[in-house]
């Protein structure tokens, strides 16, 4: 069940998207998010969808993986959409019962929300699927580096982020192991009554916390043994370099954003 979590997972590959400068990829993801949330008409969503599909196709990552990333949030999405349909009023009324109304506006808003959030997840998954955690944090550090002048601990933040990303799979694996071990002792974790399941959660959380703290401690010691002392004077094996490809991709993204803005102006 935990194997379905694909956040922060990286699928090595050799596509154009994989080879883009990670800093550009982050910026493009941000532009993309702005694009899908500013678009007000169905055409704008269409433009966003074209962009998403193009990017996904170029990345060479199986559609199955994206479906997997959407799956866990689908129930929440459907529930919110359902509530939106019931409580947002405006436009033509299709159905009326006491205080509940199903209106064209409500349906519109719900559909927009679902499509937007799916695109949001696919877009941001694409970023992590095609960028290794190390380069991703390098990019974050590099993008935030102007803040260093304001004494903002950019390097520390990036390091924390990379450690967190690095340990997601480890902790998932660990959790899986602990769950199996407790199941082997007859704990009811994915079966049995809700109360029992909640009670048995303790038997997973305690060992998990203990091991997380132990790992953190060991990692800190290991880092100190290698004389880690923060970002000052640290050099990198892999320098981030941008090429014409990156600028073209960025221009392409900005072009889509412009389209969305223009369509918005025409229709409002």
């Amino acid at each position: 069940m935990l194997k379905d979590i694909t956040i922060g997972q990286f699928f090595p590959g050799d596509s154009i998207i994989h080879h883009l400068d990670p800093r550009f990829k982050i910026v493009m993801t941000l532009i993309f998010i702005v694009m899908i949330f500013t678009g007000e008409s169905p055409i704008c969503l269409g433009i966003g969808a074209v962009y998403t599909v193009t990017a996904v196709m170029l990345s060479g990552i199986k559609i199955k993986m994206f479906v997997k990333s959407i799956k866990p949030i689908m129930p929440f999405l459907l529930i919110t959409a359902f509530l939106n349909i019931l409580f947002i009023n405006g436009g033509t009324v299709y159905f009326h019962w006491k205080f509940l109304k199903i209106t064209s506006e409500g349906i519109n808003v719900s559909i927009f929300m679902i499509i937007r959030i799916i695109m949001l997840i696919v877009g941001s998954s694409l970023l992590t699927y095609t960028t290794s955690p190390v380069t991703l944090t390098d990019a974050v550090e590099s993008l935030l580096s102007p803040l260093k002048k304001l004494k903002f601990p950019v390097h520390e933040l990036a390091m924390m982020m990379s450690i967190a990303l690095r340990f997601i799979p480890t902790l998932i694996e660990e959790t899986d192991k602990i769950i199996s071990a407790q199941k082997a002792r007859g704990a009811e974790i994915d079966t049995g009554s809700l109360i029992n399941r909640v009670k048995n959660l303790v038997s997973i959380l305690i060992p998990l916390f203990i091991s997380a703290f132990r790992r953190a401690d060991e990692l800190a010691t290991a880092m100190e043994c290698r004389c880690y002392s923060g970002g000052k004077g640290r050099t990198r094996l892999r320098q981030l370099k941008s090429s014409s490809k990156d600028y073209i991709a960025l221009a392409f993204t900005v072009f889509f954003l412009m389209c969305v803005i223009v369509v918005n102006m025409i229709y409002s």
Partner: protein
Amino acid sequence: MAILKTEELTYIYSEGSPFEKTAVDHVSIEIDEGEMVGIIGHTGSGKSTLIQHFNGLLKATSGKVLLDGVDIWADKTKIRDVRFKVGLVFQYPEYQIFEETVYKDIAFGCKNMGLDDTEIKRRVLETASDIGLPEELLKRSPFELSGGQKRRVAIAGVMAMKPEVLILDEPSAGLDPAGRDKIFECIKNYHGKYKNTVLIVSHSMEDTASFADKILVMNKAKVFCYDDTVNVFERAEEITQIGLDVPQITKVFIELKKRGLDFEKEVYTVDYAKELLLKYLKKGK
């Protein structure tokens, strides 16, 4: 009669993703009641994956696991009962400890079985003495204990469930020689006392050779050989070829064979070697 049997058991990890990997490949074995079986193989040879099928933690991609002749997945709702019959102790089991006292942690499995308090108490005390944990330790927090003691607490937690088949995954990993000997001694005593089936996964031939009636050698997700310990060591040279170690004493005897000293049987324990050599020397005189 075979208590545990697998038929063409196959398990594929992350099927359909780029990380797809066959961990267990068409494994068909039979384990008889009361046997002590050693499972050896490299890291990644599929031994840990294999044993997780025996108590239904993993469901095979294809193939069957039969416990007492019944498919364990025949009735999905009964899978918990299978877990009580087939007790599995994971690698580094001390990381699963969570209760505030040693007593409570050992009792966790029994409690899940729904036993009454007096029976639980009887079992916990009995298991604790079987595995060499003094009674005054039971009131302490398990997190204050030494590594070896913690390991024994975790093993006791499964033993107390009195499973028909006890499976231990690398029970001695990461322990010092004294702790290792202690664990194996406890397991041997336990096996001697209750006469139940015990499976021990290990990558050390040395340890395995000293207790196992039968040995299952796994290599690259497949069964390399599964036979009585003596017969397995007859293939000692093949075993070294797939990169597994054989006991040092076996190596000595392989070398002796090359130098013209032929003993009719394979040697894998120091005691037996001593006996053979003494006999040989006497004859020589």
